[in-house]
């Protein structure tokens, strides 16, 4: 891991975007997330790493209340975005999800055209006043998703006809089309080949300029490559959270060290 130039990475120390305090998640009787406190900074890529089943995806899904769709899931504690508690009863999760976009593990474009995939979010949120406006949003989103050049000539071809990497970038473009402030990514590269992975990682680095990105990944190399901050989860606990360089070179907790060196996980 000596090629990662960890020391060169400058961390932007802007304000906290997301603040979680004492978060507990239960699936029925299973206690999946145990008392997690974390502060996620704006315009930063934060990586969640940890062995399978450690709760990193569960925690990620708390941040846009996707766990609400699971009947047995119960979330306690406080998660604030820009100082507002997103689990306040007055918060409509639908509105929240427009603000906190999400990209999933498996590319899941709608079985519609590329154009409709991107335009769907802006349409239902009323972001475009007319057709030209919508065209504009679609183009801008596809450019941000770094896929515009590949699809600009076939916007009305089905989105599911693209390759896996293209589909995932289409999904990222779809997520940014609703102008979110936070972008959650749940293992966005696990279904992709190395070349597509590299493209998506490059894209994530670019997205950092505008969004607060939280990425769950199984690959420690990926976390080291793309993130500025890293959180290590183990058995539902947030074991260690700090700057990526520090986590990978000088972990404070023995469990983190064991995981990074490949002894657990």
């Amino acid at each position, binding site marked *: 891991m000596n090629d990662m130039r960890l020391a060169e990475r400058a961390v932007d120390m802007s304000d906290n975007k997301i603040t979680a305090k004492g978060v507990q998640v239960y699936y029925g009787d299973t206690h999946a997330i145990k008392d997690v406190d974390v502060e996620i900074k704006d315009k930063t890529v934060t990586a969640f790493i940890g062995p399978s089943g450690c709760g990193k995806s569960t925690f990620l899904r708390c941040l*846009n209340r*996707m766990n609400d*769709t699971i*009947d047995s899931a119960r979330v306690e504690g406080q998660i604030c975005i820009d100082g507002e508690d997103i689990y306040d009863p007055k918060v409509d999760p*639908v*509105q929240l*999800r*427009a603000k906190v*976009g*999400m*990209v*999933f593990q*498996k590319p*899941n*474009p*709608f*079985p519609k055209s590329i154009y409709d995939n991107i335009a*769907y*979010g802006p349409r*239902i*949120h009323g972001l475009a006043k007319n057709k030209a406006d919508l065209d504009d949003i679609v183009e801008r989103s596809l450019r941000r998703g770094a896929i515009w050049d590949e699809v600009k000539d076939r916007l009305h071809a*089905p989105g*599911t*006809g693209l390759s896996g990497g293209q589909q995932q970038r289409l*999904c990222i473009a*779809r*997520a940014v*089309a*609703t102008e979110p402030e936070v972008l959650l990514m749940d293992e966005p590269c696990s279904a992709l080949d190395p070349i597509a992975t590299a493209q998506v990682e490059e894209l994530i680095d670019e997205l950092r300029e505008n969004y607060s990105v939280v990425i769950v990944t199984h690959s420690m190399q990926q976390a080291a490559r793309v993130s500025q901050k890293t959180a290590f989860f183990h058995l539902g606990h947030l074991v260690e959270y700090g700057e990526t360089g520090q986590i990978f070179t000088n972990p404070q907790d023995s469990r983190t060290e064991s995981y990074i060196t490949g002894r657990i996980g």
Partner: protein
Amino acid sequence: MSDATATPGAATPRGHQPASLLTPDARTKRRNAAEGRFKLYGIIALGIGLIFLVSLLWAIISNGTSAFTQTFITVDVPLVEAELDETGNRDPAEMAKVSTFGYKPLIAAALERQIDEIGIETEIDGKDLADLLSSSAPAQVRDQVLANPDLVGQTVEFRLLASSRVDGYLKGRVTRESLARDKNLSPEHLDVVDKLRAADALEKTFNWDFIFGADASESRPEQAGIGVSMIGSFFMMLVVLFLALPIGVAASIYLEEFAPKNRFTDFIEVNISNLAAVPSIVFGILGLAVFIQFAHLPQSAPLVGGLVLTLMTLPTIIISTRASLKAVPPSIRDAALGVGASKMQSVFHHVLPLAMPGILTGTIIGLAQALGETAPLLLIGMVGFIASNPPDGLASGFLDPNSAMPAQIYEWAKRADPAYYERAWGGIIILLLFLMTMNIIAIILRRRFERRW
């Protein structure tokens, strides 16, 4: 690290056989034999099924096709003014006072003269000769005359229905031997029939009245048709489609996507599955009790039949709709929710279009099932009713007594006259054609709505 490399030089690394791939060992042989046997059972089962299917189709077609042809006798009937229109002013209301009994002697005389002119010698006298014709012949002439009063006074050529015995003789069902014990027609009549046929005055043609006509009384099988009960079936299917499809789809979407998963919804689910297995006659008696005895809807009406069949079809539609909703990958729901769609938007914009082929297939299968259902109709009085007139208008189509195709077939199969036997089989052919059409529509819709990419 395998055992073979651990013990180099051993002749039988796995202890019990020479390791040649060219000779299958005993275990492999046994497994292959078992597989071969299983394939054979499968082929035998398939063969038996095919034999049943072919013999069924052969029986239906060989017995039923004759219902689609009918024997007619061409007779020149002089429409005598003195008999049919005494006043002479051609007023249909006046002329309607002359009943079919007024026409009967005219037709009998005309037939006798015709036979004479052709040069057929027979000992049967004029009155008995008229037995060659259907007893509906006078009504047939009268209807045409009343529709067009100017025909009175002329001699008009009519194609009159032959009686079912004559028709049966041409179709090979009736023989001279069988007529020896039959008081409706004598073997001598058949000699006349042969000669009439040679003179082209008697012919067997395609029978449109069987497809479009109404049922007839028990003694006139030659006149009976399935058309009116077809209309009854059509109105019932309208009721089923417009009630069962929206109710069923709405119920399944709610249960599958919105309802909380608890004991109560589990209980409902179990009961819907159970309802699908309830014998249809139970729905019939429910319909009798609720729709007719309690709600006082008209008896034998397609509206009531449709309501009963809706109850019967709902579980089928709900089960198939839920299955196709379940089959939509959850990642599509996540994707929609992830961009901030509400639950309802995610269902109606993304899940439902993907589930559409399954929903439509289930609905059409349910409709086809309802179309062929007889038992519940027994209890609400749609069987045994002789639907003699097609409904005149929408309200009458829903509310007037009628029958349905399978009920009509059952009714014909029940009647004593062997001429009704071929009509029952013919009705089955028409019913099967409808079911086949519906299944083809289901396949086409499924193909069309299937995820195109």
